[in-house]
């Protein structure tokens, strides 16, 4: 069995002088859900359009199930796409939209009808079959778009920010619902999103994109706990990060002098290097006398945000590369804006990156 269902190799794409995809490679296993996560304009949609055949790569190749499809036009690729804002055909009904691909492929009406009905049932839109798509709510439009893409049994499903048009509450339901539905169908899917929480919810692995390249491709836990770069650290989740200079190094550990004190972390940097140390907010506790194996720092609170199940402390740090967010399950009494707090966090959970 070929484990690599989709293989993008050395993909490059320029628009005029702007390089939008830069020697990008990506491998996705069969049945896997991968998210393409990155800020607006980093080239996610462009990559998706190249995979779908709506754009030609300038260099590189795209293979699905071991077959190079780089030269095929979009309508021969059998790659399903759920477009951003769905691109439903406004002149057709729900059922006609879903049946469009079957009809295009010359499937006879008698054979198409049950497949359309099945797709309608799959997305729970059966009673809307004869409605015009313009009369649907956002969530319903999304379901139709998904059904339309799935009914032709594509080898791969691409979804471009499929939840961005939905309000927050609906988005959360639809994320889980869609993930479940696609798992049931057993399809390989790529989600594009700029929302890190959404990426964490829907995908098996996440590819963090930066300026036309994939910065890191990993499962959500690895991405969160072991980000490969400052960029990934910042893009996925929050953190406390402090710039500093390595003062001592040895045995897979460095000592870094920061604005708030000395920090030790696993890593290898030459003394004198400019680095950034970082720790995830939930690894930090407020104790003056912590057990061993921890860094301790002293900081001042600038703002407190109550988030329900947890409380965030924002630390008073000068603007610049330093950023301080600490998360506590419960706010200890007497702490508010202006309080001095002692911070402690495990050395093992402390990350070091070369300064940008």
């Amino acid at each position, binding site marked *: 069995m070929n484990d690599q269902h989709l293989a993008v190799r050395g993909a490059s794409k320029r628009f005029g002088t702007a390089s939008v995809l830069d020697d990008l490679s990506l491998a996705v296993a069969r049945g896997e859900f991968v998210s393409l996560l990155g800020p607006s304009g980093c080239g996610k949609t462009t990559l998706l359009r190249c995979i*779908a055949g709506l754009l030609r790569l300038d260099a590189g190749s795209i293979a699905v199930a071991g077959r190079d499809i780089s030269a095929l036009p979009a*309508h021969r690729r059998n790659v399903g796409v759920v477009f951003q804002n769905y*691109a439903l055909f406004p002149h057709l009904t729900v059922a006609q939209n879903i049946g469009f691909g079957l009809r295009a492929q010359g499937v006879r009406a008698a054979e198409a009808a049950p497949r359309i009905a099945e797709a309608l049932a799959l997305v729970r839109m059966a009673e809307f079959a004869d409605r015009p798509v313009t009369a649907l709510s956002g969530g319903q439009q999304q379901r139709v778009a998904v059904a339309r893409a799935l009914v032709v049994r594509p080898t791969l499903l691409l979804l471009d920010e499929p939840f961005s048009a939905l309000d927050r509450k609906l988005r959360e339901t639809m994320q889980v619902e869609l993930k479940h539905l696609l798992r049931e169908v057993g399809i390989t899917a790529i989600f594009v999103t700029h929302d890190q929480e959404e990426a964490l919810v829907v995908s098996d692995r996440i590819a963090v994109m930066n300026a036309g390249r994939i910065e890191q491709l990993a499962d959500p836990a690895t991405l969160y706990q072991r980000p490969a770069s400052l960029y990934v650290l910042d893009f996925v989740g929050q953190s406390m990060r402090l710039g500093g200079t390595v003062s001592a190094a040895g045995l897979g550990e460095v000592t870094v002098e920061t604005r708030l004190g000395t920090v030790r972390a696993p890593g290898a940097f030459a003394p004198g290097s400019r680095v950034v140390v970082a720790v995830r907010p939930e690894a930090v506790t407020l104790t003056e006398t912590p057990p061993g194996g921890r860094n301790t720092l002293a900081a001042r609170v600038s703002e407190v945000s109550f988030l329900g199940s947890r409380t965030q402390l924002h630390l008073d740090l000068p603007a610049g590369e330093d950023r301080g967010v600490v998360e506590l399950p419960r706010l200890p009494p007497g702490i508010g804006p202006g309080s001095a707090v002692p911070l402690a966090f495990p050395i093992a959970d402390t990350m070091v990156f070369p300064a940008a």
Partner: protein
Amino acid sequence: MKRDPLGLLALPGVGYLALVFLAPLLLLLWSSVRGPEGWTLDGYVRLLGDPYYRGVIAASLQLALITTGGALLLGYPAAFALARARGGWQVVLFALIFLPLTVSIIVKSFGWGIVLRRDGILNWALLNLGLIERPVRMIFTEGALYAGMINVFLPFMVLPIFAVVRMLDPRLPDAAATLGASPWFSFRRVTLPLSLPGVVAGVSLVFSLSVAAYVTPSLLMGDRYMTMSMVMAKAFLNLRDWQLGAAMAAVLLAMALAVVVGAAALQRRLGGR
């Protein structure tokens, strides 16, 4: 609630058109059925009973159909190319289509005459290309009339279609392609149906303008090709036969109204889906 004073601002304009536009039209219709001895259908009887006038009506309709068809054939693909043109180019191309609309119809018909004369530009070009050996007679032929009519009314076809096509979501053909639709299939099933409102607008506009055309046919054909408008003008100005002229005016009016109302109904159906 008090009467809304803003609504009263409509009165001067509406009143003006009612007096200066609607009343004269009604008067004209009334006089088409009102003879010296009371009610009469004499004008209509003479108009529709006379094979000559029936021929004129048929010729006008034929001219309008050919003009509309020719303009659609040329204008539809051109509108797509215009919609696809990028930024600066689109403005320039748009201006080039738009400019002829603002140039006097007399100037255009006159220029068209220069193009088609025996010693005009077209004969000159064909001679120099070696395609013909001696000048061909083109002016005062029906072909020249059709070309001239299409020339005058073509922008009225291109611009409404362009206005619709420009707004089409460019991802719709993309979506069709990812569903396995060939470009031809996606054109027939997606682009064409969605562009129909523009086509209906363009066709009704060109048809109603060209069925009533006066200047172009009289300049390009003189008396050789009589249209309804020409007969009507002649009835009023030369023959002083008001009964006949008014009847012809009523027929023209009815046609124009039928096209407008029909187009509006069609638009509603297209839009209602």
